[in-house]
C-alpha cells in the first residue's frame, strides 16, 4: 500500500459528510441492535435503499458501522431483559442475565462493550493483512478454482448451520433453484420466466433479503406482541470498572475468541451468531472454572463477545477477495458493492484500492467510536428498551415496502418481499436454516457459470477439476468437508443399531 493511496483513503473517510453518515449509522445500529427482534442483518437490508444515493465510501461505511454497533448492542437486552438483541448475543444471554441477577450487570455490559471492540479490531487487523495477500494468490485462479471455492462455501453453509444437515441441503437447493430463474445463465435462455418480463432479469435479491430478514422477523415479533418486556436492573453506573483486570485475567480467552470468530466469519454461510455459539462452547470446554458457567460467569461472555464482533470483519475477507459472502450481512453487501461499481474480486485491490483502504479505515473507526457511543447506549438503555413495539414494527414494515420498491421501482418487489418473508418464516418454524438458501441465491449464477466454462475448457472431462494444483487441493478439501459428516453420521448410526 503506498502512502498516497492511504492518504487519499483517509481524506475520503474524514470528510465531514462521511463522518456524519458514520455517526448516524452508528446511532441507527445501536438502536436496531438494542431492540430485541431487530437484527444486524435487518439493519443492513433497511440501509440498502438509503445507500443507493450515496457515493461508494459512505454507502459501505454506513453498513460497516451500523452492523458493528448492532452486534455489540445486542448484548444490552441480553443483560437486562434476558432477550438477545440480535441472534449473535443469544449464545450467552442466559449467562449475562444471570450476572445481572447477581448484581454484576455493569460488569457484564462492560465486558460486552470492551471485548466487542477488541474482537472487532482483531478481525479488522486480519482483514487488512489477509485480504490483499489472498487477492495476490486469487489473481491466478481460473474457473476451476472458483468452482471449488463456491462448492466449498455452499458445503460449509450447510454443515456449519446448526440443526439438521438434510434440511440445510434442502434449503440450499431451494436457494439455487431461485437463482436459476431468468436469463442470467451461460446459454442466455429464459428459464422459469413463463413469459413474465419481471422474471426475465431474475429475482432481485434485495427485496428477497428484506423479506427473509426483516418481514419474517416482524412476523415472529407480532406473534409475541402480547408478552411484555421486563427489565431486571434499572440503575447502571461504572461500566468500565474492572475491565483491565479482566483483560489481564483472560488474555487467552480474548485471543481465542477473536481468532475463532474471524475464522468462522470468513467461512461462507456462518456469521456472528454461529461464531458466538462456538466460542462460548470452546470457552466452557477449556475453562479452569467450568462449573461456574451458567451461573453468571464472565469468561464465556468475554470470549463469545469478542468472537461475534471479529466475525463481522472476517466475513468481508471472502466477500471482497472472491465475491463469496462470509455471512448474511456480506451477502447483502456484495449486492451494494456491485451497484457502487466496487465489483468484488482480486482485482478490487488494484482498481479500487482507495475505496478498499477507506473501508478498512472505517472498520477501525467504527470499532473505536463504539466505546463512547456504546457507553451512551448502555446509559440510555432504559429508554431504548422502552421503544414501543406497536409503533416501531408498523413503521419498519412501511420502510421495508419502500426499500423493496426502490430497487426496480415496481410493486413486484413488494410482492417478492412478502412471498419470501412468509417462506423464511415457515422455513424457520420447521427447522430449515435460512442461511444456506441465501448463499444458494447469491452464488447460484457463479456456480453454474464456472462449472460450464470449466467444462468447455476441459472438453467435458471431470478430472480436469483436479489437475491444477490449487484446484486439486481445494477439490480434495471440499470432498473431505462433504464426506466427513456423512461418514460420521453413518458410523454413529451403525454404533446405535449394534446391541
Amino acid at each position, binding site marked *: 500500500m503506498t502512502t498516497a493511496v492511504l492518504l487519499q483513503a483517509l481524506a475520503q473517510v474524514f470528510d465531514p459528510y462521511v463522518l456524519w453518515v458514520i455517526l448516524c449509522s452508528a446511532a441507527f445500529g445501536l438502536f436496531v441492535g438494542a431492540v430485541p427482534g431487530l437484527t444486524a442483518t435487518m439493519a443492513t437490508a433497511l440501509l440498502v435503499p438509503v445507500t443507493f444515493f450515496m457515493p461508494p465510501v459512505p454507502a459501505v461505511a454506513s453498513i460497516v458501522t451500523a452492523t458493528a454497533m448492532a452486534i455489540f448492542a445486542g448484548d444490552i437486552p441480553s443483560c437486562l431483559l434476558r432477550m438477545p438483541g440480535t441472534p449473535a448475543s443469544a449464545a450467552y444471554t442466559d449467562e449475562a442475565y444471570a450476572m445481572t441477577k447477581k448484581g454484576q450487570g455493569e460488569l457484564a455490559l462492560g465486558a460486552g462493550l470492551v471485548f466487542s471492540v477488541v474482537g472487532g479490531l482483531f478481525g479488522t487487523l486480519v482483514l487488512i493483512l489477509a485480504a490483499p495477500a489472498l487477492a495476490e494468490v486469487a489473481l491466478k485462479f481460473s474457473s476451476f478454482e472458483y468452482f471449488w471455492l463456491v462448492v466449498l462455501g455452499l458445503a460449509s453453509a450447510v454443515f456449519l448451520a446448526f440443526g439438521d444437515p438434510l434440511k440445510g*441441503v434442502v434449503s440450499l437447493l431451494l436457494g439455487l433453484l431461485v437463482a436459476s430463474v431468468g436469463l442470467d445463465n451461460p446459454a442466455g435462455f429464459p428459464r422459469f420466466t413463463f413469459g413474465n418480463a419481471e422474471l426475465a432479469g431474475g429475482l432481485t435479491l434485495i427485496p428477497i433479503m428484506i423479506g427473509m430478514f426483516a418481514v419474517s422477523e416482524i412476523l415472529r415479533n407480532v*406473534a409475541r406482541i402480547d408478552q411484555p418486556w421486563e427489565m431486571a436492573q434499572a440503575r447502571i453506573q461504572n461500566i468500565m470498572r474492572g475491565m483491565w483486570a479482566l483483560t489481564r485475567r483472560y488474555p487467552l480467552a480474548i485471543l481465542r475468541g477473536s481468532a475463532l470468530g474471524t475464522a468462522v466469519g470468513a467461512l461462507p454461510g456462518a456469521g456472528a451468531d454461529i461464531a458466538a455459539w462456538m466460542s462460548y462452547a470452546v470457552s466452557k470446554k477449556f475453562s479452569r472454572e467450568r462449573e461456574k458457567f451458567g451461573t453468571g460467569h464472565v469468561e464465556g461472555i468475554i470470549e463469545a463477545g469478542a468472537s461475534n464482533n471479529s466475525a463481522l470483519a472476517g466475513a468481508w475477507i471472502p466477500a471482497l477477495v472472491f465475491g463469496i459472502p462470509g455471512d448474511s450481512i456480506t451477502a447483502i453487501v456484495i449486492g451494494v458493492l456491485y451497484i457502487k461499481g466496487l465489483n468484488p474480486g482480486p482485482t478490487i485491490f488494484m482498481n479500487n484500492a482507495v475505496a478498499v483502504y477507506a473501508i478498512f479505515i472505517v472498520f477501525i473507526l467504527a470499532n473505536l467510536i463504539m466505546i463512547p457511543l456504546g457507553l451512551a447506549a448502555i446509559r440510555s438503555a432504559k429508554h431504548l428498551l422502552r421503544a414501543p413495539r406497536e409503533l416501531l*414494527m408498523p413503521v419498519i414494515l412501511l420502510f421495508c415496502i419502500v426499500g423493496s420498491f426502490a430497487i426496480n421501482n415496481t410493486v413486484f418487489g413488494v410482492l417478492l418481499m412478502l412471498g419470501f418473508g412468509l417462506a423464511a418464516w415457515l422455513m424457520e418454524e*420447521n427447522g430449515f436454516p435460512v442461511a444456506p438458501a441465501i448463499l444458494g441465491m447469491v452464488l447460484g449464477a457463479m456456480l*453454474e457459470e464456472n462449472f460450464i466454462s470449466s467444462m468447455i475448457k476441459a472438453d*467435458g472431462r471431470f478430472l480436469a477439476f483436479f489437475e491444477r494444483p490449487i484446484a486439486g487441493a481445494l477439490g480434495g478439501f471440499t470432498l473431505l468437508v462433504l464426506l466427513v459428516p456423512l461418514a460420521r453420521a453413518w458410523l454413529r448410526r451403525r454404533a446405535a443399531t449394534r446391541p
Partner: protein
Amino acid sequence: MKVHDALTGAGLAALGGVVLWHVQSFPAMPGQKYGPAWFPGVIALGLVVCGMLLALRARSAPWLAAPEWLARARPRAAFAAVLGGLLFYVLAADTLGFHLTGFVLLLLWTRVLGAAWRLAFPVALLATVLIHLAFYKLLRIPLPWGIFERFAF
C-alpha cells in the same frame, strides 16, 4: 405452523419432479453437453432425493400443528394484519397511491398491535410524511401517486 416432515418431503419431491419435467423443454446447446436444462435439472434431482429422504425418516407427529399463539386473539390479528396489509399494498398501491395506502396501513398495523388512537394517528401521519420527504423528495424514488397524481407535490 409446523408441517409434518413427510408432507414437506413429499411436496419437495413433487416440486423437483415438476421442475425436472419442465426443463425437458429447454433447448440443447449445439456442440455442448451442458445446456440451460442441466443446472436446474441437477437441483431438481437433488430436491427429489432429499424430499424422499425427509419423508422416509419422518417421525410420527401431527400433519399440521398450529403455533400456540394462534389461540390468542391479539397475536393472531397482528399476524393476519401484517400479511394481509402487505398483500393489500401490492394490489392497491398503484391505484390508491403510496401515500394513502401507506397511511391506512400504518393506522391498521399500529391499532391492531395495540396503540391508542391518539398515538396511532399522529405516528401514521408523521411517518408517511417523513418517508415522502426522505424517499420521494430527497432520494427521488418515484413512489406512486395513483389517483392523486394531479395533487402530486
